[in-house]
């Protein structure tokens, strides 16, 4: 059954149940992945998945929802029935409607959909990659976490008002996580992830090189003393922290009382005037881009922080209505609709006169801590309180030397961090979650065990 046929089937089933208002979101996927262990295939996986989420509005205009993997005729009827029953418990205090933009044109870029290469080719490529990584340095003894995958999927949104959108995509991912060991030293691990529209788009060589270099660079390690340090966040680590506190930009979180912002925060100065942050789900480098959100609203570029000031919130249909604005294309599809950012882009604005431009991670000779990657985000971030305490992988730069930090955490407050940005380097770098330059922050607490 294709997506048009499913829409017809849902429409007919809804008619038979006298349900006049409904919408649905669906995804259909085929995924293939391989893992290897010292040259041998370890696990080869294939999956075919379908997920259908249906919402119905009852006569009191209250919404009920059901999710199912059963898209048979009986499954669809059952889902509509269950959603109808659930609508008795619909939220009377916050109504949900169709997105007013669900029929607006969507920007469908060249989606670069690739054909499957097949599991045998995936296996051959991953085996070679593992061998190369193991041969890249004598201390690399294993690649305990590895995988090469390709996915092909279709996403659909349709409603009883005639909106219908769908798109199909392909995506591939390679991850290599190496483990290095040297005598009388603790094992050290690091890795690299690369995404592409298809396997042929993935730069396997650079993934191997990056995984090897990062792992080896941590072999010479030492403890760090507990103190406050000048910090340089890698593009990846800065994006991690911005995403972890994205509730600051999230209208849903504001309404739920779990955001550091409030309805009147637009215009509030959060950071140096040199900082701009956008959410840009349609960015050409975003492999996972989607032209519409869970409610069918078109995805678009949205400025979140402009010259250090809060510029916009991200919205669903219902939060936009409450805030008297329009949906921004960041909604999920649920009984209570979630809102989340797509793809963060951090850049330096023209207002950069207060920056200490001498701080450049490749040339600066003073003491600083370079945070390459933040870990355990789910455990160490209190988004509603603004605080974080996170373990990280990184280096201490001191007296012209660079030494890997054995085990440490960085702790602070997101508002303090944003206010204490002292430099934003010029070059933006592409990561799997967005684009950012290196960001320098003064005086953050590091806990080590030296």
């Amino acid at each position: 059954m294709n997506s048009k046929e499913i829409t017809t089937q849902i429409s007919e089933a809804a008619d038979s149940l006298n349900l006049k208002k409904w919408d649905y979101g669906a995804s259909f996927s085929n995924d293939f992945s391989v893992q290897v262990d010292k040259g041998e295939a370890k696990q080869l996986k294939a999956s075919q998945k379908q997920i259908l989420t249906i919402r119905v509005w009852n006569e009191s205009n209250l919404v009920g929802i059901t999710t199912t993997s059963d898209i048979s005729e009986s499954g669809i009827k059952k889902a509509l029935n269950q959603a109808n029953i659930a609508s008795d418990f619909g939220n009377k205090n916050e109504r949900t409607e169709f997105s007013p933009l669900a029929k607006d044109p969507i920007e469908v870029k060249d989606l670069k959909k690739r054909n499957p290469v097949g599991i045998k080719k995936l296996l051959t490529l991953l085996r070679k990659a593992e061998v190369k990584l193991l041969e890249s340095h004598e201390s690399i003894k294993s690649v305990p976490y590895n995988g090469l995958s390709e996915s092909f999927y279709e996403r659909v949104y349709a409603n009883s008002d005639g909106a219908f959108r769908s798109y199909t995509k392909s995506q591939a991912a390679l991850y290599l996580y190496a483990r290095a060991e040297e005598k009388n030293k603790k094992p050290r691990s690091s890795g690299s992830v690369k995404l592409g529209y298809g396997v042929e788009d993935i730069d396997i060589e650079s993934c191997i090189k990056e995984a090897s270099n990062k792992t080896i660079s941590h072999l010479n390690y030492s403890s760090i003393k507990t103190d406050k340090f000048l910090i340089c966040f890698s593009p990846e680590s800065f994006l991690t922290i911005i995403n972890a506190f994205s509730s600051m930009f999230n209208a849903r979180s504001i309404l739920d009382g779990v955001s550091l912002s409030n309805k009147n925060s637009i215009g509030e100065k959060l950071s140096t005037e040199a900082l701009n942050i956008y959410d840009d789900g349609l960015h050409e480098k975003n492999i996972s881009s989607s032209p519409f959100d869970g409610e069918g609203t078109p995805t678009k570029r949205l400025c979140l922080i402009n010259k250090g000031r809060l510029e916009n919130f991200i919205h669903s249909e219902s939060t936009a209505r409450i805030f008297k604005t329009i949906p921004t294309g960041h909604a999920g599809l649920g009984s209570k609709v979630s809102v989340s950012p797509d793809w963060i882009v951090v850049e330096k604005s023209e207002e950069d006169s207060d920056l200490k431009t001498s701080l450049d991670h490749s040339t600066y000779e003073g003491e600083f801590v370079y945070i390459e990657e933040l870990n355990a985000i789910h455990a160490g971030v209190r988004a509603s309180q603004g605080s974080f305490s996170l373990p990280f992988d990184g280096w201490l730069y001191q007296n012209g030397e660079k030494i890997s930090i054995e085990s440490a955490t960085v702790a602070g407050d997101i508002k303090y961090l944003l206010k204490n940005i002292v430099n934003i380097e010029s070059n933006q770098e592409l990561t799997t979650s967005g684009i950012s330059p290196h960001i320098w922050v003064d005086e953050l607490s590091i806990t080590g065990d030296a």
Partner: protein
Amino acid sequence: MLSSQIKSNEIVFGSCNKDLLEEIIFYGIGLGADFVEIFIENTDNSTVLAEEDFITSVSPSFGRGAGIRIFKEKKDGFVSTNDLTKHGLMRSVTQAIEMLDIVVDKKREVFNGLNKHRDYSLCKKKWINEVPSIHEISEKLLVSTKSLKKNKIITRKGSYSRNLQEIIIASSDGTYVSDIRLHQTVGLNVIASDAQYRSSGSRRFGSSGMPNEFRLWDHEKAANDVFESSMNMLYADYVDAGQMPVVLANKFGGVIFHEACGHLLETTQIERGTTPFENKLNEKIAHESVTAIDEGISEGSFGSLSVDDEGMEPEKSVLIKDGILKKFISDRAGELRTGHKRTGSGRRQNYSFAAASRMRNTYIAKGEHSKEDLINSISDGLYCKSMGGGSVGATGQFNFSVEEGYLIKNGKLTNPVKGATLIGEAKDVMPKISMCGNDLELAPGFCGSISGSVNVTVGQPHIKVDSITVGGR
């Protein structure tokens, strides 16, 4: 077996599917597989969310699917599908066989048909009618959130989740079992605020196989606990970082053992070569006061099972006895690849994951000390009353946030402190657990790992760690 003898062309829950399952397994073995396993599930789930004084979300979901796993020597191919017809299942077997590049040879494994059906679901079919209705759940959640309507509490949430999973497992070693599993959780969360001060508090409760459990939930006590916790932490200062002795509270304090040590005792870690304990069987890896257990049999506990996801009844595994490593947690692939016998620990989130060795109810056994003995023994340290989440890195480093902490000064609890994170490595910390209390209690949780998110129980009595790195400001 002739296909004309097959009675049904589709898996039907509640019916005998033996002939169809046998035909599919015969088909896989005939194509050269060493081993064929079929895992089929049918789910019926519901979640309810109460915010402030309203129900804001009711989300039912249902679905079905199959995961088919083929082994050839030590490698395996896994295919999952929503298509439970004979054609769909056979196509999945073919796909797995082709992925593994299996060639039919003369030395073929023998499949003698499925054993007698072990049906663990017989007394459980009524559960779906015994669980509380959405109305009943909503009313109790709203009473709970209403009771938290107090000064300085700005956000009140109550949530309930019910997962009912009906499973069929059949494999070429003759395994043929059915079961029904019921898991229910209920939680309360608050955020307190006063001027620039903010704190949060949460408590979660969970059970397996006890349809009446939600009705017995003491929501008043839960609300009082979560309120007190948030109030105690509202004006707390940030903790000073450093090395110090720590007392970890019972119940969810056990999350540290689970994350930092338990995962390193799963055979998947041996397969990867990422556990420092690989060659330490029968060697001392912890302080002699430590005995640690992983089991799936405690009645009603969140990690308990009648049968694991590979059709084996769970056993009680003593992992560490008086500080000596005694056993690893193993599944079928683990036994095949590492030689450690299966422990009934093959678990998966659902049909779309291959089973892996996973913990169930994991805890440190009780000792002989009172909580006060532990605290009195410390002149300057930290009491971690409530733990947040945590994680363990690829080389065994762990970190855990402390949700509710208090300084210990001269053997007494003093000021509340926030922002603490415990950092270390299992092999360094396990020998430093020098005292165990006599107040073992368990707490439910969810564990995410290679085979998805599974229900587990963590637990311990109060324990004292002589020295650990505390991250702070």
